[in-house]
């Protein structure tokens, strides 16, 4: 009995220590990466390629998801608002939801799977194949070479992708309202503009910047901590997606509580 209790306590203690170690290592990685910003000659040449990989290459999947999100939002809004509520509130609901929530969050979750897992797997592979060690041997700053351009590219490109996703989501919701619902463009635009504030767009941009940093940062962290070969790479990719998704949702709640 005593052994079981002590075993359980040891499990809790080890998990807590591991979590705290992880947080500490992540903080150390963040600080080291910030310090690596001064090595611009190392990370700058890789910034645009990473922007292309992380941002431009993610646009199709982000737009695909946003399109169907807009369609579903419009249909569900019309279904929910049937009755006494004016139909132009479909525009309000689609616009507000896409700008404030679904555009940034769904795009970030999607990119957590695509970009985060990709970075984690890439860096994990480099780690298990000792390419990262080789960089250090060649006097390359691995953080400036591997982490900084990815994180900066995500910070720069996530808002772009999110803005495009928001625009397309609203557009698809608009077209759905015109084609599938008994609505006119003036009605939809009226609802769209009814409660619109420019701050809403800034809110989406701020959220997407933080989401980009989290997704790539978590991917880099788990990638650089990959161990035990291909199995470890897969585990790192999975952890990246899970942790990044959780952090995205936590950050989403944090920004909503602090900025709105």
């Amino acid at each position, binding site marked *: 009995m005593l052994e079981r209790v002590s075993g359980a306590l040891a499990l809790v203690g080890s998990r807590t220590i591991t979590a705290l170690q992880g947080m500490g290592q992540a903080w150390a990685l963040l600080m080291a990466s910030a310090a690596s910003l001064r090595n611009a000659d190392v990370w700058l040449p890789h910034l645009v390629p990473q922007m292309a990989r992380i941002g431009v290459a993610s646009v199709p999947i982000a737009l695909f998801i946003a399109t169907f999100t807009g369609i579903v939002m419009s249909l569900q809004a019309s279904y929910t608002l049937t009755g006494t509520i004016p139909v132009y509130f479909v525009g309000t609901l689609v616009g507000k939801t896409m700008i404030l929530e679904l555009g940034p969050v769904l795009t970030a979750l999607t990119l957590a799977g695509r970009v985060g897992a990709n970075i984690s797997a890439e860096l994990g592979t480099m780690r298990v194949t000792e390419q990262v060690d080789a960089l250090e041997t060649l006097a390359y700053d691995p953080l400036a070479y591997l982490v900084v351009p990815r994180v900066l590219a995500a910070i720069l490109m996530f808002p772009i992708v999110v803005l495009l996703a928001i625009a397309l989501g609203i557009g698809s919701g608009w077209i759905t309202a015109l084609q599938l619902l008994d609505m006119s463009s003036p009605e939809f635009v009226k609802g769209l503009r009814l*409660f619109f*504030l420019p701050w809403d767009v800034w809110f989406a941009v701020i959220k997407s910047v933080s989401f980009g940093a989290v997704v790539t940062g978590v991917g880099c962290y788990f990638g650089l901590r990959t161990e035990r070969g291909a199995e470890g790479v897969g585990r790192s990719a999975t952890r990246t997606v899970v942790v990044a998704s959780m952090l995205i949702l936590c950050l989403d709640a944090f920004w909503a509580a602090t900025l709105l």
Partner: protein
Amino acid sequence: MERRREALVGLVVLLGIAVGVVGTIWLQGGLRRDMVELRAATANVGQLVAGAAVRFRGVSVGRVDAVAVTPGGEAVMVHMSVRPELALPADAAVLLAPESVFGDWQAEILSLTELDLPYFVDYPEDGVLPGAALPDFSRLTATADEIARNLTVISERFQIAFTEQTALQLRSAIENIGEVSDGLSEIITQQAARFEDLSEGVNASAAELGAAARVARTSFERIDSIIGSAGAGEMLGDAGAVLSNLRSLTDELNSSLGDMRAAARQADTTFARFDALLAAAETGDGSVGKLLGDPALADGAIEAVQELRALLADIQENPRRYLSFSIF
């Protein structure tokens, strides 16, 4: 390859920025650089928020930029941007009201003469329009709730007061009211009949008066014609003479009446004395009374009268016995 990738990244970045900027501007209602700022002071703004529509005669002419409490806290200042070509009325005011029942509010520019609400705030600053806000639905709901509670109290009191006995009394009262109503109806019917008779009489009287008036008019016309004729002066002269004779006759009658009044007064005096005499006789005072009251005296008087008569007869038969006539 590298150049192509960079171009692609640049395109996507620019496209994203353009979408964000243009979309924001479009959702705001377009570029608003050429807008004119308006300010209005209200006691409260209800549910009005920045971005709400500003309307003039139902047309959207701008947006609400900001809502802020004045430094003194006595009012709320609503900052608006409206189209520069908008011609405001001289007595323009801003009414904040719900745009729909779902919480979206609007600021409507109107003329105070159109809607003279008593609670427009007149802020003592140039360029600030007076403003007012209609009660929002929460206030209406609160008022309705208060009314409902009052109704509940009234209902409870009514339930307490309205017992079975009250119902019976009420029924009896209603029956009494019915009887009274029937009586009143009957009285009214009778009075109506009387009024009809009266009105008929009035009508007849009015007709007669009308006829009399016509006759009078005819008479007056005739009098006018007579007065206006040539023999009127002579007739008037005759009438004056007759009146003069009547006046003299009246004077004579008056003097005769005065004499008659004097004679009547003397007769009254005589009768009074006679009454006194009779009273004295009845009481036995005086000679006549004693005469009337004493039979012996009466007999004596009779005898004296008889002797006097005998004496007179003897005198007449033998005058020389009693009379002697000589000159010297």
